[in-house]
């Protein structure tokens, strides 16, 4: 039985997607797969059991049959955090081991999903490092390439994990950067004994944000076209310019949403004419009725939020970086990408798995 820990040095780098992509392929190749996320930070109660939202989602996508209790043995609720800060919760490591034992029975591969970065959970004695050691796992590190200091993080991980570091997958690679990565960075890592199993491109679809998520995060009030909230937005535009410029600007941007003050009827109407996917009105200002009717006619949802334009832009930027797993389209698209870009043959060889 192979235990593969999927972690990251930085967080929000695509671990969940990688787990799903690997899991799907393993299952298709006939392997018996188990999955757990030792330490989760998004508490939710499913079937009466406390677990982690992302873990639950992955469990369902991979259609696994293991009991919910084993999915996420340590869930960070507010209570747990308080206990942790007071030093009142020993034995979390044991819980994780117990869950792992239950999940790994009769499995060929167990995928272990890391939370955040390798250090996350240190204050509870269940950091990524702790878990990898306890479970004697091989580690795959998934990270965005954000500059040469990526190398520093990788080499540091190598130093700490030693032989347990299996290799890396580099995510969100800008098309213009691909050459440099392939010519310089990858060979550098390989020379250091860190195999690179795949380069995942920066993808507009994957970076897109669902309108419904924007509504949720910003606590928006949806004025019309509630059935359009599952639309995906690739680009957010700020409608601060003169109306005639706005029209051009909006028309030539694909799958956009326009963020503008609620009192700017001129820009709002222009955005609707230019067929934006969504209007986000800021400052808790409700638009004139004529704007709402036109939007309704064209099937464009309007969301009114309390925050100001800058805060909205910031939030939306954050959202775009985090893959919200409930967006099914994106997930399946992402899994596809992993299938295409990861060198599974090399992975199987390195793991010692025969298919």
């Amino acid at each position, binding site marked *: 039985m192979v235990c593969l820990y999927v972690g990251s040095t930085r967080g929000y780098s695509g671990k969940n997607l990688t787990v799903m992509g690997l899991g799907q392929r393993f299952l298709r190749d006939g392997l018996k797969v188990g999955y757990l996320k030792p330490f989760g930070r998004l508490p939710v109660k499913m079937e009466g059991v406390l677990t982690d939202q992302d873990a639950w989602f992955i469990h369902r996508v991979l259609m696994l049959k293991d009991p919910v209790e084993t999915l996420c043995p340590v869930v960070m609720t507010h209570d747990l955090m*308080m206990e942790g800060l007071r030093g009142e919760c020993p034995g979390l490591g044991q819980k994780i081991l117990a869950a792992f034992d239950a999940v790994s029975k009769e499995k060929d591969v167990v995928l272990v999903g890391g939370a955040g970065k390798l250090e996350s959970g240190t204050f509870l004695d269940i950091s990524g490092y702790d878990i990898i050691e306890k479970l004697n796992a091989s580690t795959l590190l998934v990270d965005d390439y954000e500059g040469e200091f990526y190398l520093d993080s990788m080499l540091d991980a190598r130093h700490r994990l030693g032989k347990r570091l299996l290799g890396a997958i580099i995510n969100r690679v800008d098309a213009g950067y691909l050459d440099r990565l392939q010519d310089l960075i990858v060979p550098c890592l390989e020379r250091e004994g860190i195999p690179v199993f795949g380069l995942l491109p920066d993808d507009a679809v994957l970076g897109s944000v669902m309108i419904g998520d924007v509504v949720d995060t910003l606590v928006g009030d949806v004025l019309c076209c509630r059935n359009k909230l599952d639309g995906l937005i690739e680009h957010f535009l700020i409608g601060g310019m003169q109306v005639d410029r706005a029209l051009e600007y909006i028309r030539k941007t694909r799958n956009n949403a326009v963020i503008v003050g609620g009192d700017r009827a001129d820009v709002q109407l222009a955005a609707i004419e230019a067929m934006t996917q969504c209007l986000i009105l800021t400052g808790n200002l409700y638009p004139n009725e004529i704007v709402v009717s036109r939007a309704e006619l064209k099937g464009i949802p309007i969301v009114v939020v309390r925050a100001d334009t800058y805060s909205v832009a910031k939030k939306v930027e954050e959202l775009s970086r985090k893959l919200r797993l409930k967006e099914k389209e994106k997930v399946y698209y992402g899994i596809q990408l992993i299938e295409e870009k990861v060198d599974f043959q090399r992975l199987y060889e390195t793991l010692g798995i025969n298919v």
Partner: protein
Amino acid sequence: MLDHFFNPSSVAVVGASQTPGKIGYDILNNVLQHGYRGAVYPINPKAKEILGRKTYADLVSVPFDIDLAVIALPAAAVMKVIEQCGRKKIDSVVIISAGFKEVGPHGARLEEELAGLAGKLGIRVVGPNCLGLIDTKSSLNASFAAGMPLGGNIGFFSQSGALCVAILDWALGENVGFSRFVSLGNKMDISETEMMLAMEQDENTRVILGYLESIEDGPPFMKAARQVAQEKPIIVIKSGTTTAGAKAASSHTGALAGSEHAYDAAFKQSGIIRAQSMQALFSYAMAFASQPLPRGARLAIITNSGGPGILAADACDRSSLHLSPIRKETADRLREFLPPTASVYNPIDIIGDASHERYEKTLSVVVQDEFIHAILILLTPTASVDPKAVAHSIVKLARDADKPIMTSFMGEKKVRAARKILQDHAIPSYDYPEDAIAALDAMLSYRRWREKPERQCRVFEADTRKVREIFASVIGQRRHDLIESEAREILRAYGFRLPESRMARTTKEALGAASEIGYPIVMKIASPDVLHKSDIGGVRVKLENEAMVEEAFFDITSNIQVRRPEARILGVMVQEMIPQGREVILGITRDLQFGPMIMFGLGGIYVEVLKDVSFRIAPLSVESADAMIHEIRSFPLLRGVRGELPADIEGIKDALVRLSQMAIDFPEIIEADINPLLVCAEGQGAVAVDARITIQE
């Protein structure tokens, strides 16, 4: 006060010109032409004599004392003249010249320097950038307006010079007279505040009228207005209330137009009557200038035609007046001479064939009826009536009347002469009955305001030291928004009733708190980063047992953790749940002109969707608090509907006044909301359930 402006014994016109059409000529001409009997000194280095008067090279060359100087020179030259005024000990100056604050930053700087110099020399200034001023009693026209208004008892001041010109012309056409007529211009020194006070003291002024775009310093304005309005009615039209208007106003004299709510509240609290249009301004003036204030709201309408009578009755209904019931004695007396088809009940319809005699008899009876507080006489020019004769009858009977009499002779050609007769004898004459009713309404409101003198505000014992501590701590942490527990402490310091509350950082602590406080309880997220708790699933109410408390703690903390991962969660606030009560909202906001403003409204949709709120400027008297509560449209809901008990209005008043004191005591509070204040039934008080306070250094 300001005597040298309005009744100087000598006037110098600096920049007097020999050329007709130039401002320097027009001003001098005006001073000389309209009967002024004091000494006049034209100043112009290039002339020996203008319009028959010896002309001097400069002020210093004049060998006599000068009370008032009027300056009409280019802006750059004014400074020197002011210096000379100082040397000549001239203490009152009108600066006509433009080119100061209204043209931009360069002009603003010049104006600042000028103000500094004038202040240093003890010189009072009207203007700059103004039309000038006129006093009809002393026959002084120190302006470049075309013409001289008729004498009268209306004192008028305006921020716009050009408007003054239009009004002067209109007034001449309508036979409206003024006691004083002042164009304030840029208000570098003398503003509307002092002008109001000066007109209060002027025995020739009975009504004060004003056109304003902005008020520089709110609190002294309100204080002065309150004082003056006790004596004489002040009617003001304030422009710049719509955003379009405000933009225009901002560029007009470089002033900030100010918020509509604040001005509205300020006027209400000072007893200023606000006119919504120029037409209303003067139609109110006509009434206030000549008629006694009505002692009550009972109006009698006398008409010779049903239609206009009904229109007037409708307008009456929409106002605070009402159609008076006609008492038996009066009805009987009327029946003695009115035809059977006439109506002796209000509106008193003396029908189309009425002659002036019938009008006179009817009016005589109605005037004598003490039950009736005001009379409106309508006339349509039928074949049987001679409008001029009716006018004369009215004039005759109005002479000894102790109630206001208003007229509306409808039409134009046939009634023009009659209208003139009424106007000449100070009987207000309106083209349409609605205008007459509006004027009467204003008069009644003013009277009611005058009869209710504002009492002193109550002063509460407050733990100001505690408040200062908390504010210091918040600022020290580089925050501006208080978290709920801090806001509660502030309210507690001011004597507000608060629900029992405990912080809980874990489920266990929450259970403990709930059992201490007693079920049912309410639970809210405690986080400095979450301001609108209920929007984001951060509040649970009506938790009745331990299981519900556990679930709620998990739900609330997880919710915020997931939706706002960056928020610092301190735990939850476990609070006593107040039984049935009506939700109201109280608030503090800051207005640039008037300072702290208190807001009141019924909670939830009433404020958010219907915007049914009232405002008053702090400090709030108990009367203002009362007025604020009664003013909102949904007030009847507080009185109780469908068998509900009335809400504790006294409790709301108490809360409003405490909040007002807090706003005054702590200018660092820029915004605050008590939302909701749960108001229990009469006698059971009100509880501040949640509050937000925002401060600045």
